[in-house]
């Protein structure tokens, strides 16, 4: 017994020592260290532009500590958002600068993954513990507006006597901010679907990496993917000796957020999520079934993608086993971090007669309960961030203000510019409905069933459409 006790105590002490050692050696993040500096200097991810990276890209987190309690002002603002990953880091940096410029305000930032964020916002509204401001998707505006918890932000726009120029915002973006004729949100960015390609794999397969040469038909894309899908013996998918059971490198991955892929594909085939008047679900139209069937075929007929389940696209891309990943503007900084993987952005692939892609808008919203001093402080934060949207571009997303988009340099922000153009030209957003999240859940299930060979495209979409229609009617 004694031996065991001694062992346990020693173990405990050693472990505690290690843990404490790490904590104190590295140093706790100081609560009020504002981050000074202009974006161009501090963000190493510019390396992404040059395909052959000379310097090793340092991870931003080593350069400066990321702060969640920003500033020391008496006027305190609580802010929630879902920007996990490198874009949230960028926003925190911006807010730190704001706090330096506005020493009377302090901000506590809480970053919570989107799904959880929406749930927490709801429970917080119920509890009366909602934050002073939050950043969510414009697609959430109908839901929050219906609950009656949002403040009318019409007075922030120049049309209502405010500072934000209405004509500096594209029509498609503005559409997302309004529900029932009221403007409820202030846009930060557009973010959306695009492809990231592994340039080395493209060159090895003899395919040009210039996005202008991208195929414009489904068949063209299939061939491209086939050239990029290689089995362990070096045969690509076009060769008769191709062994689909032993693939070493995949051309594409259908399982990466299938919902938005589908929405884009649906639009490409001329379909739409909801009918014009928003009362009928139309995902199971001819266009929808065709769109989904094409993706199913990529997996089971052409063998250029693994089935959706049990596959981690990001990990594979980073591990060098995936040539093309359908992802988005948010991928920029992470892509740059992958040592040994040279990549660049391409527009979304075209599988239908017309090109299309999905995009969304991150927007600031203010709870109706935020008033007085808090409201003033919150407005100042939002205004400052809006004026500095160019900084936000370093996160990979596309600034919402059109004037800012024009100022972006092509060397630094190729992916933002490239994809941003596609959003303006032919982008589609989430359907406008208070129950959009519930509907997207049903869609997600349908896509999962179809892509994992559990149901045919038609069955899956029909079943989902029924459920979505029920939910819609229940409104």
């Amino acid at each position: 017994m004694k031996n065991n006790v001694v062992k346990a105590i020693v173990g405990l002490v050693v472990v505690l020592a290690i843990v404490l050692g790490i904590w104190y050696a590295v140093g706790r993040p100081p609560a009020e260290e504002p981050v000074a500096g202009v974006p161009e200097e501090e963000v190493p991810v510019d390396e992404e532009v040059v395909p052959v990276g000379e310097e090793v890209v340092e991870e931003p987190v080593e350069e400066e500590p990321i702060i969640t309690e920003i500033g020391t002002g008496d006027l305190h603002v609580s802010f929630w958002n879902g920007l996990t990953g490198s874009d949230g880091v960028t926003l925190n940096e911006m807010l730190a600068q704001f706090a330096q410029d506005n020493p009377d305000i302090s901000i506590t930032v809480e970053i919570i993954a989107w799904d959880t964020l929406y749930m927490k916002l709801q429970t917080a509204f119920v509890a009366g513990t909602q934050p002073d401001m939050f950043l969510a998707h414009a697609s959430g505006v109908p839901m929050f507006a219906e609950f009656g918890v949002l403040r009318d932000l019409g007075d922030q726009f120049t049309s209502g006597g405010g500072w934000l120029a209405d004509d500096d915002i594209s029509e498609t973006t503005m559409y997302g901010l309004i529900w029932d004729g009221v403007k409820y949100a202030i846009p930060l960015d557009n973010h959306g679907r695009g492809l990231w390609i592994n340039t080395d794999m493209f060159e090895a397969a003899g395919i040009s990496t210039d996005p202008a040469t991208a195929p414009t038909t489904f068949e063209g894309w299939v061939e491209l993917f086939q050239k990029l899908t290689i089995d362990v013996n070096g045969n690509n998918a076009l060769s008769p000796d191709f062994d689909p059971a032993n693939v070493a490198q995949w051309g594409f991955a259908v399982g990466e957020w299938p919902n938005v892929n589908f929405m884009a594909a649906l639009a490409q085939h001329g379909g739409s999520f909801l009918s014009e008047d928003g009362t009928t679900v139309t995902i199971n139209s001819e266009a929808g079934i065709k769109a989904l069937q094409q993706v199913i075929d990529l997996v089971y007929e052409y063998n250029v993608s693994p089935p959706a389940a049990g596959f981690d696209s990001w990990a594979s891309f980073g591990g060098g086993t995936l040539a093309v990943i359908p992802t988005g503007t948010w991928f920029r900084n992470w892509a740059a971090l992958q040592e040994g993987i040279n990549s660049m952005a391409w527009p979304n692939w075209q599988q239908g007669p017309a090109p299309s892609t999905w995009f969304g808008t991150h927007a600031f919203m203010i709870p109706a309960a935020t008033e007085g001093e808090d409201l003033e402080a919150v407005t100042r934060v939002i205004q400052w961030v809006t004026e500095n949207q160019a900084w936000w571009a370093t996160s990979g997303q596309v600034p919402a203000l059109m004037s800012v988009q024009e100022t972006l340099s092509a060397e630094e922000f190729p992916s933002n510019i490239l994809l941003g153009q596609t959003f303006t030209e032919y982008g589609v957003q989430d359907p406008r409905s208070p129950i959009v999240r519930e509907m997207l859940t049903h869609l997600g299930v349908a896509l999962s069933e179809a892509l994992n060979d559990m149901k045919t495209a038609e069955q899956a979409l029909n079943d989902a459409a029924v459920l979505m229609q029920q939910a819609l009617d229940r409104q």
Partner: protein
Amino acid sequence: MAGIETYQNKKVILSKERTVPFYLKLKTREAVAAYIFLAPFLIFFSVFFIRATITSIRLSFFDWRLLRPDITFIGFGNYIELLNDSIWWSAVQNTLFFAIMTVIGATIFGLAAALAVTRPIRGGEFFRVLFYVPQLMSVGAIGLIWNWLLNTQFGTINYFLSFFGIASVNWLGNPDIVMQSLSMVTIWWTFGFPMLIYIAGLQNIPEQLYEAARIDGANAWQTLVYITLPLLRPAILFVMVTGFIGHFQVFGQPQIITAGGGPGRASWTVIIYLFQNAWVAFRMGFGTAIAMAIAMIMAVVTLIQFKLINRNVEY
């Protein structure tokens, strides 16, 4: 009234029982003391359990979305919708299958481990601790670990299997085996607890019984079946009952490992169904009806278990 009899037609008072006032009677004092001891527990119980359950039952007859002000009475509407929902029934099926398989698996492994660890061998204590370690981890950690290991394309398990010439198993992507995979993970995670219970139970079996068996010439198998197992029956009952109740309410594993019950709805459990309806669609009334239904199912199965396993077990 006590102590008055008739003797030769005359009332004779034999003895007068001192009537003790109610509040001094031993029985009363004991009852009062008992309730004082019970009070803290009962207070918490009534506030956070009884009241909550009654509210839930009431709520299940209404239609209520969390943030909407209107609450409408719809009688049995929620229950009818539930009974007619094929997704609900498939979730029940999945969950029953999962719970039964996991309970049986954890019991068998737990028992085997307990038996092995209590032999007179060296390092029994080390193994005992080791086998319980997974149980100390949170479901989030478990999800992280096993999601990776069971990855179909590039996961470690499939990689190892390839050395034996076994083709990649689609652990989490094949709707026919996904519940089995989740059950496997759960058994790995939780068999330590049954093991502990059985160890305790084994330690309670008197030496003499084994001696007697040996003298009578019983071999290991016979000893196991005729002596050990019957005496472990209370432990087995306990493990299976609590195990079933716990595993029937599984949520974390499918939610995290198969990203919400995939593929499709192949690993939707009843709690995922509840979560989707109550916390994603925010239909609180419907959600409480689902919770009630889950309670009823568990009650039925538990009763069945008691009938089957519980013979002459003191509780």
